[in-house]
């Protein structure tokens, strides 16, 4: 049940968008496809919706093979980054579209549309046109439109990508809550790891058309399968063959065992969190994440010589196998 993709390949000219991708999305879950641009995440989502035809591979939705089913018959709800609002229709008309296609009778359509508009907090704006709405309102309208036809799965392609930071955060929380209420199997695509971790129960990290790793946010952060995942899911410093998270950097004024000499290059205050940048003896640059309290205790200033002791270190030298060591 849920969504299963098996051995998906897709090529656009010289570009291999999907390179043997298989994923399994449990029924009723909220999954994020996370990756940089060009990683194939949107192509995968569009292939699930039937908007893109796979060169090879299969897509199953709720247990039945949908590979050959056209988008029109897949019963998926799809939300686009740029809303894809029907500009010549009112909000009501947009949300009612799928129901009119299904030839529902007028009274039923009206009830259903208003119920959905209440759900997405747009009741009262039913007679407006999309260009009279804000970005966040348009995206909620698009969501209501997708949900109106009671899709088997809900697919969102960078749904908050075009919105400003504040609205993004609100919608994120709101989507999370909506999913808790509706329990429709949902996949959303994002390049923002914080967003993915905030909203999704399961993350699938993609890179260059392949799945690098999937799991919960905690699993990916604690046990990244390789360098790419480690650096994509959170910040990372590289020390030779080792990788260490900036918050695992221990900064001290005394030299000691396993400590490396470094010079404070720059101190950036980002509110409670402080970013301190260092240059090591060999010229490598690393940074540490400190709290304001820690900074005040150390009384660091730029140009000062300090000693760094990396805590949790990981290396992926042989065959990408994770090696953890606590120094």
């Amino acid at each position, binding site marked *: 049940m849920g969504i299963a993709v098996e051995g998906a390949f897709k090529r656009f000219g010289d570009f291999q968008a999907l390179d043997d991708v298989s994923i399994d999305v449990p029924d009723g879950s909220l999954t994020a496809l996370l990756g940089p641009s060009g990683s194939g995440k949107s192509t995968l989502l569009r292939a699930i919706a*039937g*908007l893109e035809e796979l060169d090879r591979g299969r897509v199953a939705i709720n247990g039945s093979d949908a590979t050959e089913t056209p988008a029109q*018959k897949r*019963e998926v709800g799809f939300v686009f980054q740029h809303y894809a609002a029907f500009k*010549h229709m009112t909000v009501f008309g947009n949300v009612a579209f*799928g129901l009119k*296609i299904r030839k529902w009778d007028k009274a039923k359509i009206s009830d259903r549309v208003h119920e959905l508009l209440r759900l997405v907090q747009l009741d009262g704006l039913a007679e*407006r*046109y999309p260009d009279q709405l804000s970005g966040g309102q348009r995206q909620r309208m698009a969501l209501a*439109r997708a949900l109106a036809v009671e899709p088997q799965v809900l697919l969102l392609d960078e749904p908050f990508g075009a919105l400003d930071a504040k609205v993004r955060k609100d919608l994120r929380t709101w989507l999370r809550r909506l999913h808790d209420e509706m329990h429709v199997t949902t996949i959303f695509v994002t390049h923002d790891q914080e967003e993915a971790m905030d909203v999704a129960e399961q993350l699938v990290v993609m890179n260059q058309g392949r799945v690098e790793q999937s799991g919960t946010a905690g699993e990916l952060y604690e046990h990244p399968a390789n360098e790419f995942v480690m650096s994509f899911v959170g910040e990372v410093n590289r020390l030779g063959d080792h990788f260490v998270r900036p918050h695992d950097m221990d900064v001290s004024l005394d030299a000691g065992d396993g400590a490396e000499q470094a010079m404070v290059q720059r101190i950036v205050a980002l509110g409670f969190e402080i970013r301190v940048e260092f240059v090591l003896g060999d010229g490598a640059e690393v940074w540490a994440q400190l709290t304001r309290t820690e900074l005040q205790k150390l009384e660091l200033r730029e140009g000062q010589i300090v000693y760094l002791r990396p805590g949790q270190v990981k290396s992926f030298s042989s065959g990408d196998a994770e090696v953890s060591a606590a120094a």
Partner: protein
Amino acid sequence: MTASTPAKWGLRGLAFGYLGLLLLAPVGMIFYKTFEHGLGPPVEAMTSPEALHAIQLTLLMVAVAVPLNTIFGVGCALLLVRRRWWGNSIVDGIINLPFAVSPIVVGLSLYLLYGNTGWFGPTMAEWGIQVLFSWPGMVLASIFVSLPFVVRETVPVLREIGTEQEQAASTLGANGWQTFWRITLPAIRWGVAYGVVLTTARVLGEFGAVTIVSGSISGETETMPLFVAKAFEQFQEEAAYAGAIVLALLALTTLLLMSVGGRKAKASTTKEGF
């Protein structure tokens, strides 16, 4: 950037002067000449059997050529924009042909094709269809010369709206036909409408190609532009000017219908929801 006041007025003066001298003065002159002696003479000139027939025939050209070129134009634009195939650039080039070829040449080529010794002429004659010196030939000529307008006006709009709305419609269960009527066509309606206006104007005013294939027989194969030209040659200035006015009014009516329709559509899109 805001222009200084003299520059602003200078530009405005230039724009109005240019339009006035080159467009308004000639058209205004025609109006003046026509109604110089009141309404009587032009109305009389336009109610002669030949004039009425010419008006009818001109409207027939519009009634046949415009819908055909609109359907073809929208379909062709969809093909050019929404389907990527090797024939695109060839089709794209061919469509511009009527812009590149002089209408007289169009008339001559139709004459060659449908004449007694042409490729299609004898076959058509066998079927009992008279193409040359009859309305079918004139319709063919009108279609030829006005063919690119709807395509050319629709293609950029179709590119601009993108495919996302259509894709959204398909995920909502709409088939290709439903998507076209409910999503694509309303979204490109302005481009299409503008193309229709240009096509209509072109068909109304077509002279060169139609002259050749029609033979310009008074009361039979004479459209309004041919009527005006003949009247002018025969020193019936009243009829010539009146005919010109009728043509101008027909074109204006098309434009007016467009902008009235436009205002209506705009009013409905800006209506508030409270």
